Each structure stands twice: as structure tokens, then as C-alpha cells.
């Protein structure tokens, strides 16, 4: 931290270490806390997946080397992953990646750090609430991780936790539910903070149509979190009641498990869980993708040196997308036996929601036209996001149409589809964001060569992992199978599984340059001034790293967010907060 000698910051320097860096109320410290914690969780989630990949490539064979004894006889006797353990790995991979990794990084990390800076605010509207959000998230994460060590292990009913399976599951599921209640509460507090901050604390002159697209994306995301998460909290409470108080919200009458009639009243409905779950979990998909689109828009505008194409239509599209995302959820449930009228309705809404996605993607692609494109690491990740998200979006079409969904539902096609959206899509955007804003946070740039090595190998291996899944899915291989070779169609596609697994382990190796780069650059990266990318948005008008309170004088905004290469200017960027010409 560089020291700025300003009277009004004086009180901050007096704070003890634990108030300044651990229980801090500064949005930047909280943002970094979120980002680092989320990166660790991404690493954990990725590790779980690599174990899954071993079992899928070599079903029933003992894990290699020291791994064979690491997980104990309860999980992997003789190094052979048991189906129970496999299901834990699967459920927790999904939960950790979504709720503890990607969302906390994109919303908690980038949102917290960048949004107040981009709107010229000194902090979030409710700093203490912000701190509380982080710590509630942290506790939720600890509960989730702890559940691996309770009797019976962690939750093993999938990240979707469908009842009745989840209700009759071992106690790991209870920890999962309690962990989820914490994570949901954290998200709710965070989203309130984001909404109020965006509405109330924008700098003078920063009207809504001068906001960077990233802020818009976060703003819409916050509404999704605010209104879609509570029904999942409801569902979580109901499932906890079913598990602990033996009620029957999700349990119909006459259940017989392993030959024993369940001693419950019955009268519930398992579909209810799916409705409440997907009412959140579909908007959640957009929570995963919108901030990523925001990051990509920032990086592309900055590195093409020209304004974003169709800025306003992108904003209308993102608002419409957010709205529509609340009324498409049942397309995850075409095959539960709902009426064809209802499925027709949800097919129509699903096709409608594809239009704004295409508009945003098209606008980002057209933004490249006429630019002077700089191929630095953040830009490479942002460019790669476009076709990768494109594949993810397009493969949603056959899943969104009920007739083709008959064959593809719950197969590897689904896994390929949403991973293309989230892994080479969102996670690439998050990498772009890390490389892009790292200099603002630390005052140093990350190494370009290591960054490019990281990018190219990640790009190759990402596709190596997810592209074959479409062929497995078309072949009809079901998800979540401990040993797909039990089936003839699984046997015929098994070579693909081996290929995917090696790609996944290659992807892990490709992250080594990133990890070296990340930690190395904190100490040895090239020192930069406050605006190394020559960008226009407000965060680059603040000192680097920004002091407590962010700006030396409250910024005033004079123009839109992407005024690059404006004719008549000496330089090819014209910052939002600059009154005179540049």
C-alpha cells in the first residue's frame, strides 16, 4: 500500500491490522478477500473434478501414487473411489464452483472492488453490511468444506439436491442446506448493497446511460440475486424441516426405501422442490454470465481503442435478459410430466431469452470492427470468451426445445453446454478481469509472457475437456454415472472420457503459469502508474492502489464510458472525469 498524506484518511492509518485487512469495511479490501477466497474455492472445486475425471477415465481403478491412500477407507478403499464418494465429489464440485467460486469472484470480488470505483463512490453504501456479507459467505464456505469430514461425508445428491433423494440422504445434506442458507443470506446482503450503491452513490454527472456496461451488468445481477434467491432459501428451510422435523413437504405418500416403508405422513410433492430450486437456479445462470459479459465489454472497449458498438441496445438487452430469466426456469423440468401447454409456454420464453443474448454477443463482436486491437493477455481472454460463450449459448437451443430435450436431457450434452457458458465463458472473462484490474489493485502489471502461455494452453485444454462431451451426450450417456462403461453407448464413447480426463489434467498444469504469475507479480511485477491501459472509466482516474475513500477529490463525470479515439483529441482516450481535452 502506498501512503497518501491526506487528513481525512488519517484515521484509517491508525486502524490495527485486523481492522484494516481482516475485519475491514473498505470495499477494496473486502473485494480482495472475496476474490482470494473464491480463487481458493475454484481451486478446490477443480481438484474435486480432477478426481472425478480419474474415475471416469479409468473406472474402478485405484488412484495413482500417494492419492491412493489419501482419502481413507470410507471414501476410497485401496485408492478406488467409491460411488458414495464419487457422488460427493460431483455434488460438491457443482456447489463449490457456482456458489463459492464463480459468483463470489465475479460479484463479490470484481463487483465489490470495481463497481464503487467505476461509479466514483468512496465505498459501498453500507460498508459494515458489506463486511458482514463476506464473513457470512466465509462461514458458509467453511460449513460446506467441513461437511466432507462428517460421518457419511458431504452432500451427495447433486448440486440440485432433488428431493426425495436429498431428504433421505446422510447428514452431509444437512450441512449443505445450512451452508446454503449462509451463502444465500450473504448474497442477499450483497445485492442490497450493490443496488443502493448504484442508485445512490454515482458521481455527479454519471447518469445511468453513462455507466460502464460492467456496472449495468452488476446492477441487473443484483436484482436477480435479490429476488430469485429467497425462494431457494424457502426451499432450503422446507428441506431442512423434512430432514430434521420429519415433515413431508417434498415427500409423497407411500414411499418405500430399500424395502422399508418410510415413517412419515406423506402428502408432499417432489416437484415443488424443483420449482423453488430452479426459480433461483435459472436466474443464477445469468448471475454467472452477466458480470462476465460486463468484464468482457470493459476489456474489449479498452483494447480496441474504440467505443462499444450499440451501447444502449446492450443495456436494454441486459435488462430484458434479467427480466426474462425469471420466467424460463421450468425448461429444466420438461420431462417431469408437466402439461404440454406449460412446456410450450416455457419453450417460447426460452427462445425469446436467446434473442437478447445474441444481441449482446453480436454487439461485442461488432465492437471489434474498426478497432486497433491490442493483443495483451486480458484481451486474449476476452476475445476467446466470445466464441466460447457462443458455443455455450447455441448448444442451449436443442436443450431449450422440449422435443430435442427428450433425448439430450440429463446427458453429457447438458454438462458440455453449461460448462461452455461457465468455464471457457465466465472463467475466461474472470481471468481477463484479473489481468485487467490487477495493476489497479497492486500497482504492478502481471507478466505478459506467462499470461499468454496461460491463455493458449487453457484455451486448448478447455476445448479438449468440453467439446467431446457433446458427442457423449448425443450418444445418450447419462450424467453423474460412476461408471459409464456399464452401458453399451457409454462403452462406445469411453475413449472420449479418457481424452477429456487428460485434457482436464492438462488444464490443471496450464494454471501453473497463472499461479506463479499471480503471486510473483504482486512482488516483482512491472510497476505502473494509475492508468496503465490508458482506459477511460473512473477507476483509472483514482490513484493506484486507491486509498481509503478512493478518490482524492470527488470525481465529476463529463461523458460516456467508452470515449476512445475521439476525433480532435491528442490522445486516443478521453477519461470520463476529465473536463478538458486530452
Amino acid at each position, binding site marked *: 500500500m502506498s501512503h497518501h498524506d491526506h487528513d481525512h484518511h488519517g484515521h484509517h492509518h491508525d486502524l490495527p491490522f485486523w481492522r484494516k485487512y481482516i475485519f475491514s469495511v473498505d470495499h477494496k479490501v473486502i473485494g480482495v478477500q472475496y476474490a482470494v477466497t473464491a480463487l481458493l474455492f475454484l481451486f478446490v472445486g477443480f481438484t474435486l473434478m480432477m478426481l472425478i475425471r480419474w474415475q471416469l477415465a479409468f473406472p474402478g481403478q485405484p488412484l495413482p501414487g500417494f492419492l491412493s491412500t489419501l482419502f481413507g477407507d470410507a471414501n476410497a478403499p485401496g485408492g478406488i473411489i467409491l460411488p458414495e464418494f464419487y457422488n460427493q465429489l460431483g455434488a460438491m464440485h457443482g456447489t463449490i464452483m457456482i456458489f463459492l467460486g464463480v459468483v463470489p469472484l465475479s460479484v463479490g470480488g470484481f463487483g465489490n472492488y470495481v463497481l464503487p470505483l467505476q461509479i466514483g463512490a468512496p465505498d459501498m453504501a453500507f460498508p459494515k453490511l458489506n463486511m458482514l456479507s463476506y464473513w457470512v459467505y466465509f462461514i458458509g464456505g467453511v460449513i460446506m468444506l467441513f461437511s466432507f469430514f462428517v460421518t457419511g461425508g458431504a452432500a451427495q445428491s447433486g448440486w440440485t439436491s432433488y428431493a426425495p433423494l436429498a431428504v433421505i440422504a446422510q447428514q452431509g445434506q444437512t450441512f449443505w442446506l445450512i451452508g446454503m442458507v449462509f451463502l444465500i443470506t450473504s448474497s442477499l446482503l450483497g445485492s442490497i448493497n450493490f443496488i443502493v450503491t448504484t*442508485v445512490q452513490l454515482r458521481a455527479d454527472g454519471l447518469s445511468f446511460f453513462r455507466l460502464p456496461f460492467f456496472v449495468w451488468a452488476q446492477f441487473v445481477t443484483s*436484482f436477480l440475486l435479490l*429476488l*430469485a434467491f429467497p*425462494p431457494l432459501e424457502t426451499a432450503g428451510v422446507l428441506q431442512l424441516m423434512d430432514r430434521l422435523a420429519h415433515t413431508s413437504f417434498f415427500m409423497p405418500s407411500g414411499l418405500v426405501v430399500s424395502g422399508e416403508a418410510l415413517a412419515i405422513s406423506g402428502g408432499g*410433492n417432489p*416437484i*415443488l422442490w424443483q*420449482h*423453488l430450486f430452479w*426459480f433461483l437456479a435459472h436466474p443464477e445462470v445469468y448471475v454467472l454470465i452477466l458480470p462476465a459479459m460486463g468484464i468482457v465489454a470493459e476489456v474489449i472497449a479498452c483494447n480496441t481503442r474504440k467505443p462499444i458498438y450499440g451501447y444502449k441496445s446492450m443495456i436494454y438487452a441486459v435488462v430484458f435478459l434479467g427480466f426474462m430469466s*425469471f*420466467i424460463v426456469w*421450468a425448461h429444466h*423440468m420438461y420431462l417431469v410430466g*408437466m*402439461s404440454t401447454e*406449460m412446456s410450450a409456454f416455457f419453450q417460447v420464453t426460452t427462445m425469446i431469452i436467446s434473442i437478447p443474448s445474441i444481441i449482446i454477443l453480436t454487439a461485442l463482436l461488432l465492437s471489434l470492427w474498426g478497432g486497433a486491437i491490442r493483443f495483451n493477455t486480458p484481451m486474449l481472454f476476452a476475445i476467446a470468451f466470445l466464441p466460447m460463450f457462443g458455443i455455450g449459448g447455441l448448444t442451449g437451443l436443442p436443450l431449450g426445445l422440449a422435443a430435442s430435450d427428450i433425448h439430450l436431457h440429463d446427458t453429457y450434452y447438458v454438462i458440455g453446454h453449461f460448462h461452455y457458458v461457465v468455464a471457457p465463458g465466465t472463467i475466461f472473462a474472470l481471468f481477463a478481469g484479473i489481468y485487467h484490474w490487477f495493476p489497479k489493485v497492486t500497482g504492478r502489471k502481471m507478466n505478459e509472457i506467462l499470461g499468454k502461455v496461460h491463455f493458449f494452453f487453457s484455451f486448448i485444454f478447455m476445448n479438449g475437456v468440453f467439446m467431446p462431451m457433446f458427442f457423449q451426450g448425443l450418444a445418450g450417456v447419462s450424467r453423474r454415472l460412476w461408471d459409464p462403461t456399464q452401458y453399451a453407448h457409454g462403452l462406445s464413447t469411453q475413449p472420449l472420457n479418457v481424452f477429456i480426463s487428460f485434457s482436464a489434467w492438462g488444464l490443471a498444469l496450464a494454471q501453473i503459469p497463472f499461479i506463479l504469475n499471480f503471486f510473483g507479480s504482486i512482488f516483482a511485477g512491472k510497476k505502473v502508474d494509475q492508468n496503465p491501459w490508458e482506459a477511460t472509466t473512473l477507476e483509472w482516474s483514482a490513484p493506484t492502489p486507491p486509498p481509503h475513500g478512493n478518490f482524492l477529490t470527488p470525481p465529476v463525470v463529463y461523458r460516456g464510458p467508452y470515449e476512445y479515439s475521439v476525433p480532435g483529441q491528442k490522445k486516443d482516450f478521453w477519461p470520463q472525469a476529465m473536463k478538458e481535452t486530452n
Partner: protein
Amino acid sequence: MSHSEAELKNQVKVYISVFVVLMFLTMVTVAVSYLHLSTLAAIAVALIIASIKAGLVACYFMHLISERTIIYAVLGLTAIFFLVLLITPVYSV
């Protein structure tokens, strides 16, 4: 919120009248429940009365009757999704 003196004095009268109406409606809804109406009629009457009561609380105690656009916008959006959540599941089971 800032109010002039006269406005504030008037407020108390409003609160008291709303209180009286709420008490009256509570009595009505309990009384109606002893009438043994058909299920549908009973539901309709009870929900209409509850909605009126809720409306009074929201409008006068929570001052929604003279609130800002931003609050209406947030609540309008919430109301739409609330109805979607309330109605859709029962039709698709």
C-alpha cells in the same frame, strides 16, 4: 421525510382511523369464518379482506401512498415475480 406541522397533526388522525378500520375488518373476517360459506367463497372473502388490510398498512403505516418512484419500481418488479412464483407451480404439476 419532512412534513409541516399541520400535516403531522393530521397524520395522527389518519393512523387512528386506519387502526379502527383494521380492527373492524379483523372482526369481520373472523365473523365470516363462522358463516360456513362454500370453500371458494370463503377464500375469496378472506383474501379480499386481508388484501384491504394489507393495503391499508402498506399505504398509511409504511407511507407507500406517497412514496418515491424508485420504491414503486422495486416493489412493482417484486410483485410481478411474486405472482409468477405463486401461480405457475400449481399449474405445472
